[in-house]
């Protein structure tokens, strides 16, 4: 099966990289909320390297 065949079967698609839900627009807000770190204990010791 090719991806496009799966997409035809799907009622809803959520892209977790962009948090975009098809036909619902982008759900991201102005704060990126992401970090260049593991999120584990003391992950905050790793700096965010985001450009935005």
């Amino acid at each position, binding site marked *: 099966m090719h991806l496009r065949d799966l997409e035809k079967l799907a009622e809803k*698609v959520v892209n*977790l990289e962009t948090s975009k839900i098809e036909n619902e627009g982008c759900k991201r807000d102005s704060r990126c909320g992401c970090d260049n770190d*593991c999120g584990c204990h*003391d*992950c905050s010791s*790793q700096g965010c390297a985001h450009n935005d």
Partner: protein
Amino acid sequence: MKHRVFKFKSAKENKLLVWIPTLYNLYVTELRYAKDIPCIIEDETEFQAKKEIKECLYSFSSCTLILTTRCNLSCLYCYEKGNALKHQNMTEKTAFAAINYIIDWATKLNKIASISFFGGEPTLNWIILKKATDYFKRKALENNCRGLTRITTNGCMTINKAKWLANNIDNITVSMDGYKEIHDWQRDNSFNLSFRTAKVIYDIMPPKISFRVTVTEKNVQSLPMITLFLAKEFPNCIINFEPVESSIRNDCLDLAVDYSLFFNRFLESVPVAASLGAKIRTSVSMIGSAKNRFCGIGDSNFMILPDGRILACNRMIGEDSISDIFCYGYFKEEEEEFVFDDKKYNFLQELTVDNIQACKDCVARFSCRGDCPATKAVVYKNGFEQKTSPYCKEIQEFTKNLLEYIAQNGTDGLAIK
């Protein structure tokens, strides 16, 4: 390219969830299509796990300065208590050498330079904190390089120091374990000071603040209430929940959390956060960023202790044999240079989920990423690099529940990257 497909029945009647982590896509279909959807699917999209771009093994553009091993609190679960470390402060010479090192590489690689201050309680080495921050900013400016500063603090400081942080540091994580009763119990009666500091920072620079909540057996049931409390007091904040690491210290086993309970309460907290514009996360909820390593160990982690040791994990600060696995060099003060141990660093580099056979076909592969190497080193000792998480089943279940939640509600209230 071929992509692995994970299928599981939705809690919603007659619905199927289809998760393709290498495409970051989650599909909801009719359950009756389950047999038609294969375990491997083809698409032109290439996938490569996200990782630090480096020119050489040690081309670090970020570092963590553990400014001091001293702390003004004695939290119930602190991993540093068990290490009986000498109280040491980082010197200006070590701090400046690390800054020069990362600015040089950031400039060469055209990357953002980032510096994180950690401890102990980093604000206890206040003079070096201020000097290092000023020096870092000046060097970044001179080299036309963007610089980012970050600190993790317990918030026990004067109002003037809190104001300085708000005005000079880009990202400030305050450790707060909830409202007064619970915070005071877990964190040495420090609620009033920590809360005041968080308020001072938030009033000046709201987007800079985030919270670290350590979850124990005592506060795990209260996660939705803690979320409500922090999100109401600090609208739009980010809250990072992590279960207490009882495996690191035997004397806090009674604080250990049932992981299933923790994950369930976490998911119950998401709509609370969403309703107030906050975001919550935990280490294995980062499902929107497919990396192949749990953290920066063997990748971006360049952490310097006051005694000059270079660590890949800031929890592994002891001088025992397990901590030594995560120490891959030292600062040679006379020559003002960093000396690296290739053999040890090569081992750390191999700590990826790709090298754990049992994780190969796991639904949580890209969110769990084989879980924390330091925890596994303590739990399993020899051969830990090949082991799955001690909480494997709970994490798999959580991943499915998280995907189910996202399929129904979207990602509002969640930080997933």
